[in-house]
Structure formats: structure tokens, C-alpha cells
């Protein structure tokens, strides 16, 4: 019985990250043209409370922001951060968990 309880707990722990995944924001950012310049935008986004990861695809001009469960951001929030970094936010889509 003990073994069964431990197994159930382990399965529960194992599945926690996928259950707790938050929203993913896909930002189309224009003006990103070199890795050195992209640092500013990564730094600004990572400073937002609740942001887990920031991935930048220079070729596509896409910035993918993964946030913690229960956290949400508005387009205006991202627009300000991208603008402060010196770039242009063209569009934003979000993928719910």
C-alpha cells in the first residue's frame, strides 16, 4: 500500500509542471537584427515578474515569452517593454495552456 501511495505521489509530482504551465505569448518584434541588440529586449522581458523563459528567433522576428500559471500580461505591457528596448512590437498572440 505504501508503495502505491509513493508511486501515486511521484506521478503527481512528475505531472505538475505540465498542469501548471502558464500562458505563452508570441510577440512579433520588428527591428531585431543582431544578437547583441537582442539582449536588451530579453533583459527587459525577463525582469517582468512571472516570466519564466524568453526565446528569441531572429530570423522570424519572433519573441516567445512563457509565463507562470496564473500570470497574464496585456499587449500594452509588452509594447512598452519592447519600445523601451528600442524596437517595434508588431503583433501579439497568446496560447493558453
Amino acid at each position, binding site marked *: 500500500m505504501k508503495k502505491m501511495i509513493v508511486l501515486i505521489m511521484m506521478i503527481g509530482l512528475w505531472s505538475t509542471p505540465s498542469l501548471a504551465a502558464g500562458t505563452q505569448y508570441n510577440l512579433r518584434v520588428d*527591428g531585431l537584427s*543582431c*544578437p*547583441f541588440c537582442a*539582449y536588451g529586449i530579453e533583459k527587459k522581458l525577463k525582469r517582468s515578474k512571472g516570466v519564466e523563459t524568453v526565446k528569441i528567433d531572429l530570423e522570424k522576428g519572433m519573441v516567445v515569452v512563457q509565463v507562470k500559471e496564473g500570470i497574464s500580461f496585456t499587449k500594452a505591457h509588452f509594447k512598452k517593454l519592447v519600445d*523601451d528596448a528600442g*524596437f517595434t512590437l508588431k503583433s501579439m498572440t497568446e496560447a493558453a495552456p
Partner: protein
Amino acid sequence: MKKIMACGVLFVASFQLAAAPVTFNTALPVSKGEGVVRVQAKYLSATDDPGPMNRDLTVKALPVVGVWGVSPRWSLFAIVPLLDKSLKLDTPSGRMKRSVDGLGDVTTLVRYTAYRNDQPGRTFRIAPFAGIEMPTGKDDEQDAFGRLPGALQLGSGAWNPLLGVVMTNQSLKQEWGASASIKLNNEANRFERGDEARLDLSWHRRIWMGGAAGGLPHFMYAGLEGNAIWQGRHRNNGQADPNSGGTTFFLAPTLQYITIHNVIEVAIQLPVIQNLNGSALQQDFIVTLSLRRNI
């Protein structure tokens, strides 16, 4: 001694900022509230003496450039140069060496991004800038032979304003830039360096990309930069020095390795045209090694 040299001032006064070209400024953005530091090591050799003194000039410089993003459009720059100048020349009493080292004139300037056109994977920007070179370097250095000539001093002793505009067009595969600027030099201790005007052009092309897995890629750029520099004659005690000033055009092959945090770069400026006044000393080359880091 007045006609010691016309060069040696030009390359430390050219404010290579936190930017894409190695030998001049850029219009690329600096994030609001973020900074970039650039440390350069420069070596200038000038041994082609058209006069009888067989002059050899070497200038080693370590300009440290700090950039701060005040807003998405405004950036502040500070250029702090450490200099080591050495001049050897023949005199009636034998070969003489005169040298000096220390802090040069610090330059501060502001840059405003007046125009910005962002597209996917590319940007085009135009940014005027203005600043002032401050008299932080000593301009009354002496050695065993007396007071050093004005052009060999660490500083000009004067407040010298500068003004210019830079444009940059950068895509993922290539980049070009152009800049035009002037610096008006003022008189101090009865010596006035000639005013300077310069036109700079650059073209860089990505030749390698790597390290993309799980993060931003690293780029390697090869490039060619051109610097057309005009300097007026120096003035000693109100008299124009006929052996100073003139026009120089440098061509500089460059190589840059770019990551998200750092840029490591090298450039060799070769003077393909030197149309200098009188017996002004001609330059051989300028080598620049540089590291930029996001902070």
C-alpha cells in the same frame, strides 16, 4: 619643434562608440535604463617622414566608452581615453625621444534617434549627435627638453564641441552605415589644434552563424570601413602651422564576432590617401582591438 606631427590626435579624437562599425559611431539602439561598455586597444604608427628629422611616432590608446540608454530615443556617451605617445626624431645633438602618457581629453555626447524604420529582421535609423571634448588631459606636460609641443600633449586644454549625424541600416545578413561629423577645436595655452571634419562609411556582411541551438546564434561579420578625415592647420601663438593638417583617407578591413553579451572585433586602418600639408608626418597604420559588452 612646432612641426612635430599632424597625426596622433586624429585617431584618439575619433569617437568610436558602442556600435556596429569598429572605426566610428552607429545609430543602433541602446535599451532604456541599460548600458554598453566598449574597451578598445589602439596602436598607431607614423614613420613616413617627408622632412629631414626622421621622425617615428607611436601612439597607444585605450579608449573606454560607456553608453547609457536614457530613453528609447536618447542615449548618453562618455569616452575616456588613456594615452601613451612617443616620438623619436633626429636633432643636431643626436636622436631624441619625447614621450608622455596619461589621461586624455574625455568626450561626452548625446545621440537622438530621429528616424526609425523597423521591419522583420532589419532596421534603418538616422541619429544626429552632439557633444563636447573636455580638457581633462594635461596640456602643459614637459620633459628634459622642455615643454612638449601642443600636438604631443595629452589634452588640448580647450573645450571642443562636436556635431554629427549617423545612419545605420542593419539586417541579419549585412549592414551598412554612414556618418558625417565636425569638431571645432579651440585655443588654449597659445595652441589650437586644427578643426576636424570626417565622413565615415561601413559595410559588413555575415560570413558565419553558429551556436543557435537553444538560444540566440553567434554571428561573424567581415567588413570594410572607410574614413575620410580632414583637419585644418594647427595654430601656434596665433600663427597657422604650415606643416600640420591635411586630408587622410583610411580603408579598414574588419572582423567581428557577435554574441548576445559581447562583441569582439578587430580593424586595421590603412591610409590609402594622405594629402598632408608641408612636412606633416604621414601615418603607416592603426590597429584596433575592441570588446563590447552589454551590462
